């Protein structure tokens, strides 16, 4: 049986999905904070949000890099 492979797949799935979701959620939260009326430094929060979105898309691109054999092999 391929229990080890099963575990690896489960672990990789969890790690990848959690990374993307956490980064994107943080970005969403920071956008919301930046949108608050009584926010002291909306610019900073907004740029932090964009950094989060950027990291998230980087994670996705890395995933693509992994599945396309043209790049990874």
């Amino acid at each position, binding site marked *: *049986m*391929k229990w080890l*492979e*099963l575990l*690896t*797949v*489960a672990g*990789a*799935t*969890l790690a*990848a*999905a*959690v990374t*993307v*979701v*956490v980064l*994107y*959620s*943080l*970005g*969403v*939260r920071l*956008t*919301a*904070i930046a*949108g*608050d009326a009584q926010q002291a430094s909306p610019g900073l929060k907004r740029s932090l949000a964009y950094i989060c979105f950027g990291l*998230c*898309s980087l994670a*996705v691109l890395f*995933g*693509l890099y*992994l*599945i*396309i*054999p*043209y790049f990874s092999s």
Partner: protein
Amino acid sequence: MVALVIALALFFDFTNGFHDTANAMATPIATGAIKPKTAVTLAAILNLVGAFLSTEVAKTVSGGIIREGSDGVQITPDIIFAGLMGAILWNMITWLKGLPSSSSHALFGGLIGAAIAGIGFNSINLEGLMQKVILPAIFAPLIAGIVAYVCTRLAYALTSRHDPETGSKLTQKRGGFRTGQIFTSSLVALAHGTNDAQKTMGIITLVLIAAGTQQPGSGPQFWVIAACAFAIAIGTYAGGWRIIRTMGAGLTEVKPAQGFAAETSTASAILASSHLGFALSTTQVASGSVIGSGMGRKGTSVRWSMVGKIALGWLFTLPAAGIVGALTALLVKTGVIGVLIAAVAGTAAVLFMFFYSRKSAVGHHNAIEVEEAGQAVRFAKKKAMARARAHAKAKADAKAKNDADANTPKETQR
């Protein structure tokens, strides 16, 4: 015979495409992230691109379940013809019922049935069957569901904001997830293209090798790749609206954050499994994710009766496609007339189901009413919130006035 099998294989690819549009595009359509027509177009293009990206899966398809090679049995085009027949008919039936069922399982089921009827029971590699089909069928929805559940909880926990003093809710901007959904669902479509188009490429290559027109052990030829890519893209564009309806609205109501979490888990599960070699079914992963994300949000109910129906469909996929495959294999064994009868009967059945489906057409216009409904609800909510805010403000003003009134006499008294 070879030409017939190739035509049938391409038709199977087509049914696979429109059967599986739902996996990628049901949730973004349900949340209104992408318009239905745009969604299927996007999915079709990405499937096309995905099919060209990799041929790794094509090289290993069907290996391991039916004993082939020198010590086993020779797979003939007849067996593949019968197997494809079973797979296509089962795909059409589940589509008619709007059930998301695995196209690859239908294919495996058809091939297994055909091999048993055509060659004998000893042609089946039971251990391979267990490893490649039955265990993944149990674990695919489980893994995807758990991951989607965790992600949905995380997404909601991270974006939930309360005023520390009053405890009232602050703006959360969860609509931002809608933009993210466009990207995650595209990723799912791409992953689907790299996975499922290849199964057909593998089949056609197998036929060509069996017919002796291609070297054994070589990869799919370019025209095969191109034909399969276009067949699956056209199928995707045709859109399996019935299944989209089941996935997008039948299982649970989907909010943008949930949709985002579900798609991310689907994409990562498919990518991880195809990269690490424990093949999981796209459809089962996607259904599991939608259910998991439904359980992850408070106040959402999962329609377990629908889940049961789908699970039952999965249970029947292998044997049902297998029986059709076996019957076809028996027919084919009788000779040319049998092949003709099988081909005619199969075409008739597909045409019948197509026209039967016309009676209660489900198209992009009525696949999911949730989009408009969701917008309406959002509107109502905003208005209600504005009203509540105005109300609260009026109250506060009145209170302030009262306080002021109460204060002024005190001051005058002094």
